[in-house]
């Protein structure tokens, strides 16, 4: 394994410190929401996790496009890394949303347009990982991954805009809520600052994890090549 670059070491430390700060802000700086109580505090990281999920899928689509243009495996590795991280955070987003929904909507789950599109988006990318694992030829696997990541990305704007385009009970943070939206609240300045800081911190987490995952992908490719060479 190549030695960890100093910049990555610094990014690791900065990310941990920022996450600690964001957590402190959520619990001690942002005020308690008047109606929902403590569970509203999940909102800051719930939305931030959704943001990282979508950012990961956007990065994967970009990496896919670059792979098709350049045929360089580094873009395939980056695309796979971005999908994997995006999927982890999309999962966090959906599960925390369900936990928040239980006391607010009085149900763990409802087939609302936002929840449905988010689930479909997650399943599309889970299928990406499973289908990739079934292709042995590295070139075919990379081409397939690139095309899939680009087409699969269509599910991301659909998920993002679903709460704005369709009749839904899911509240929106930016824009106007649908008439039936339940659980929306007016953010105070401290809440808004905590929310924006959480988005920034999770962007750092994404960058840090992506770098680590790309390094792992490079190591995996090296091992795969050596295995093929030893079989010849």
């Amino acid at each position, binding site marked *: *394994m*190549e030695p960890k670059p100093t910049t990555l070491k610094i990014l690791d430390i900065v990310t941990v410190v920022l996450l600690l700060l964001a957590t402190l802000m959520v619990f001690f700086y942002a005020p308690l*929401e008047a109606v929902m109580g403590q569970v509203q505090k999940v909102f800051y990281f719930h939305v931030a996790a959704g943001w990282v999920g979508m950012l990961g899928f956007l990065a994967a689509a970009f990496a896919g496009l670059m792979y098709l243009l350049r045929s360089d495996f580094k873009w395939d590795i980056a695309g796979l890394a971005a999908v994997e991280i995006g999927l982890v955070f999309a999962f966090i987003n959906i599960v*925390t949303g369900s*936990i928040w929904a239980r006391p607010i909507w009085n149900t763990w789950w409802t087939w609302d347009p936002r929840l449905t599109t988010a689930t479909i988006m997650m399943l599309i990318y889970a299928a990406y990982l499973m289908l990739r694992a079934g292709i042995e030829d590295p070139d075919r696997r990379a081409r397939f991954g690139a095309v899939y990541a680009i087409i699969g990305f269509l599910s991301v704007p659909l998920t993002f805009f679903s709460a704005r385009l369709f009749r839904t009970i899911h509240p929106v943070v930016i824009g106007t809520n649908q008439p039936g939206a339940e659980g929306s609240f007016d953010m105070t300045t401290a809440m808004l600052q905590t929310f924006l800081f959480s988005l920034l911190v999770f962007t750092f987490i994404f960058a840090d994890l992506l770098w680590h995952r790309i390094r792992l992908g490079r*190591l995996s490719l090296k*091992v795969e090549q050596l295995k093929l060479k030893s079989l010849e």
Partner: protein
Amino acid sequence: MESIFLQGPANTTSYMIAGFTVIFGVMLLYLVSLVIRQRNLNQDLEVLQELEPADFPESNEGQ
């Protein structure tokens, strides 16, 4: 007489704890999976290098 109106925020602390457990738990699990995968790949690399050290002289170089 008790008021039928909400006196304060709802008691949703247990849901908040569950939410943050999921957030930090899943992130920690992912980190652990990265560490385990890296360790396994390094072990594979060592074995492959031991098999034919002459074929992979560049494998120990830092990049």
